[in-house]
């Protein structure tokens, strides 16, 4: 099976909105020796961009967007990021973004979507989560700048 096939499979896994399927396919790609940065750029992030476009065109709903974003997020955190740091690789980035929901606010769905789509478009998004104090934003910005 060529690399194209596994990338298609990754895109389709994202479009299935099934986190387990995204995890399994990511594991499969890693076991085939595919570079984790390529798994992101040519697979998962590409899948998210397709979901984003379909949402924009009214073919998919907000729930699909959130489900896809969370599935990709899980594969990143649990499988790809550890692998990337182990190999001391770096994903090419259009810029670094620090994002979070401000202190006093726990509504993070919108923020998660923005972070996921920024990531899908090639930015390095540092998501601080919800109810984040100003100091944390400043410290993180200084740290990654």
């Amino acid at each position, binding site marked *: 099976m060529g690399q194209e096939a596994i990338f298609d499979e990754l895109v389709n896994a994202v479009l299935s909105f099934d986190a387990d399927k995204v995890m399994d396919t990511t594991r499969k790609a890693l076991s085939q020796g595919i570079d984790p940065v390529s798994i992101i750029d040519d697979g998962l992030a590409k899948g998210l961009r397709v979901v984003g476009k379909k949402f924009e065109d*009214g073919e998919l*709903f*907000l*729930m699909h967007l959130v489900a896809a974003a969370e599935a990709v997020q899980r594969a990143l955190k649990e499988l790809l990021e550890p692998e990337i740091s182990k190999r001391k690789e770096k994903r090419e980035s259009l810029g670094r973004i620090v994002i979070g929901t401000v202190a006093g606010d*726990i509504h993070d*769905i*919108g923020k998660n979507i923005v972070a996921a789509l920024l990531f899908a478009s090639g930015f390095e998004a540092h998501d601080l989560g919800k109810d984040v104090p100003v100091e944390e934003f400043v410290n993180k910005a200084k740290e990654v700048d």
Partner: protein
Amino acid sequence: MTEYLHEFEVLFNNTEKPILYSCPGAYAAQKVLEMASTIVGGKDELRKRPILTLYTETVTPLAFSSTNENIIEFAKAEVPFTNGPVPMLGASAPMTLSGAGVVSNSENLATLTLSQLINPHTPVIYTCWATPMDPVTSRCSFGAPEFALGTSVLNATMASYYGLPSYEFGGCSDSKLPDAQAGAEVMMNSMMAGLCGVNLIHDCGYLAGGSIGSIEMAVTCNEIIGMVSRIVKGVEVNDETLAVDVIRAVGPEGHFMSQKHTLKHLETELFFPKLFDRTSEVTWAKAGKKDVRDIAKEKAKKILKEHFPETLPKDVERQLAQIVKDAEKELLKKI
């Protein structure tokens, strides 16, 4: 937070009607209760004659926040409150109306428990709401059929199960104008609320999913509510209304216009529109071909110009202003 105190001051000074509104957190609640006590003549009087009801909202799904400390203050004062959880289908609650109802009911039982632990005499108005989030815009849709179902059927059923009075929506729409969409949605949710027998119904004249308050839509809602009330009244069937004797007396090919029975029942059997037009197209054209939206606007302007509510006594007015002023100072110190 002081905005709520200013809003309450305006409300107290400009309406003779009971008020149902929010004052988040313990401090605002204390101050608002102080204002209300001042108006009615003390805390005991307020308990006997509560001129206001607290509207508070738990954080769906299944959480309290510090704003809900207002429940504690109202329970202590024995003034009614109602909690409005807004579980949105597939977002802050399960995708199904019943599932969202479970979330809503759980939150409300928690607020009831809290209030009754503080004061077992706390008057409460129950809600069980399930609302749809439009999956395209992510806005809560006030004009959706599921909104009407989720806030009336579930609500009225559960309230009657618990033997509590209920509270919900009617007269609201997603449309940005008081147009045909608004009319259809308002009629739908008002009718559902009415037919389900919900006790307290709010949000009349709300457009754009609760983002716009429209005075002319409120005037139109008044008309729609009149029609709904008539439908809720139903068809009375008894010897008097069956009118067999009258039919026999008039006989075939006669008329009923001058019958005593007709005049006796005329004004109670029919709903008389005050806004909607039933004239012929000729009469309507002669009167300037007005759209009901224009008529509603004219009527709203007339009411605003001519209606003056009974004002509070000057000394009470001054005391309310003083409470707000002192609270502002106190809050500034805390910053």
